[in-house]
């Protein structure tokens, strides 16, 4: 029995990690939808969901239940098997990719030495779900939406790939863990060496996830809802989950490659060590927010559930705060093991959240592109810029290796050259 347990241990740990990541990502996705509604509302001077739970905090659960209970309609003349398969392909592709995302220094499901290639491959599998879903619906809007979506994904994937290459040149590895470790060793996040590449990755990521201002595949005024127009209930929610999971995924890739993954800001500067306590501070702030919300609730029996929930949330936040600050004496000095253990995951999630906020902010700010503008931006600006950036980045690295130039200086020179090309490209363009 003991030997069986010993033999099964690697699998057991992997299984636990898979479950934790799966549940974590699902929860994150559910609350991403909530955050989007809330942030968009505030950008438009509304309040957003307020009724289900305090500040609408239970809204994702209510939405999920609603989608589950809705009637599941399959359109007449639809290709049933493929109609059934498409959302599952999308969802599996989106969630499988998380197995390679390094959430923390010792928290990733797995690490492969072709990690990034696999991520790109798996996320390109997600396109299949979109095409097949749009085609199998046997309806015009989904078909057009799927065509647009595919054209867009295929075009922007090229720019994305080239922009990722320049980060790979700096890291010298395709493994997601090693890319972050390279940033730790060089003591600089790659965004500061390759800002143009990060810009391209971010824009391409927005296009890849069909988000505003590139959300033409789902343009309501033209195509109803794009490729998932005919989907309802549970199947629709699968597509929805996959889309938001893909958003989290591209943000994670961008964070890993350019924003130092799980590294703390100023990880090498001892003067900034106080930043290690930020996770605890966040939970303290959450507890304080709960208290404030309780005080601002109107009196009366109809608010008792909200009050109870706020008390529970606050108590939970305080509990987490206390656990995080659990001190242990090591060699006569105080150490915080729990705080240290969650450090990496915390900073990773903070950066991912920041990028996701950017996504939502964009949606609240920019008008939608026209489709030909979108394609011409992709092919005539982003792809040439990405290629030029890779060339100059490679030249910069070689320059710093052959001469005794500082890597940062030569890469900044390369970036300046790239920006010059960008200006030329913009100046030449007739849209």
């Amino acid at each position, binding site marked *: 029995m003991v030997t069986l347990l010993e033999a099964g241990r690697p699998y057991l740990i992997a299984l636990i990690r898979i479950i934790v990541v799966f549940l974590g990502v699902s929860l994150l996705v559910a609350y991403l939808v909530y955050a989007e509604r809330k942030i968009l509302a505030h950008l438009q001077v509304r309040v957003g969901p307020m009724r289900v739970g305090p500040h609408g905090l239970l809204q994702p659960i209510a939405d999920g239940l609603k989608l589950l209970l809705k009637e599941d309609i399959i359109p007449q003349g639809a*290709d049933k098997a*493929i109609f059934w*398969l498409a959302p599952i392909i999308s969802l599996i592709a989106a969630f499988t990719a998380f197995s390679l995302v390094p959430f923390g220094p010792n928290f990733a499901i797995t690490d*492969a*030495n*072709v990690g990034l*290639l*696999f991520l*790109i*491959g*798996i996320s*390109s*599998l997600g*396109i*299949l779900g979109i*095409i*097949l879903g*749009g*085609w*199998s619906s046997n309806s015009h809007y989904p*078909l057009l939406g*799927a*065509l647009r979506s*595919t*054209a867009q*994904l*295929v075009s922007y*994937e090229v720019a994305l790939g080239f922009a990722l290459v320049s980060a790979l040149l700096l890291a010298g590895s*395709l493994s997601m863990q090693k890319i972050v470790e390279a940033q730790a060793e060089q003591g600089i996040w790659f965004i500061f060496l390759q800002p143009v590449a990060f810009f391209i990755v971010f824009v391409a990521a927005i296009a890849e996830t069909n988000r505003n201002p590139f959300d033409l595949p789902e343009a309501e005024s033209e195509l109803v809802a794009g490729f998932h127009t005919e989907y309802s209930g549970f199947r629709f929610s699968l597509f929805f989950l996959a889309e938001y999971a893909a958003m989290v995924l591209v943000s994670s890739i961008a964070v890993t490659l350019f924003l130092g993954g799980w590294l703390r800001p100023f990880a090498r500067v001892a003067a900034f060590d106080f930043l290690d306590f930020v996770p605890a501070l966040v939970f303290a702030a959450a507890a304080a927010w709960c208290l404030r919300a309780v005080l601002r609730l109107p009196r009366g029996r109809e608010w008792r559930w909200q009050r109870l929930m706020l008390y529970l949330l606050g108590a939970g936040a305080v509990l987490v705060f206390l656990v995080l600050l659990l001190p242990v004496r090591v060699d006569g000095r105080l150490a915080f093991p729990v705080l240290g253990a969650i450090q990496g995951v915390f900073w990773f999630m903070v950066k991912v959240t920041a990028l996701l906020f950017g996504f939502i902010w964009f949606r609240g700010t920019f008008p939608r592109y026209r489709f030909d503008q979108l394609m011409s931006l992709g092919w005539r600006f982003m792809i040439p810029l990405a290629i030029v950036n890779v060339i100059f980045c490679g030249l910069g690295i070689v320059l710093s290796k052959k001469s005794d130039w500082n890597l940062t200086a030569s890469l900044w020179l390369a970036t300046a050259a790239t920006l010059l090309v960008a200006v030329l490209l913009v100046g030449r363009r007739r849209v």
Partner: protein
Amino acid sequence: MIFYQATFYTLAAVAVVSALLVVTRRNPVHSAIYLIITLLSVALLYLQLQAEFLAAVQIILYIGGIMVLFLFVIMLVRLDVATRQAPFNRQGLVAGVAALVLLVEFAGAIYLGRGTAELPRAAAGALQPNTEQIGRMLFQNYMLPFEIASLLLLVAMVGAVVMAKRR
């Protein structure tokens, strides 16, 4: 070892069966899906041989690139016409004979050459991550063929653009 063989035979069976289905389905979209399954199981076979770079590239290029474009084109074709046409013509006999000859040839080649194909077994743990090695091979030992291949692709691309522009 049993696990290894079981996965190998499962993947091989899936690849062969779905390859057969690619040819026999009437609906081109179904054929394309079975082709994707075939390509995916071949990619997994590469993975089992620890050729992870090849597996990743197989997925990115064949499934993410070529098959997506296939489906893209198929979607634009009137499918009801395509499904009504018979997918087979009357050359079945000739094809069958050719396939049989090929089978005999392969079987003969494998049977006659069975002693020569004995590759040395890699020691356990000796397999290096092969992405770097492939890169080194491509850009050092096989630089010229690599460049020629890329030039060919470039020519093909320019040719396609020229033909599309002429209308």
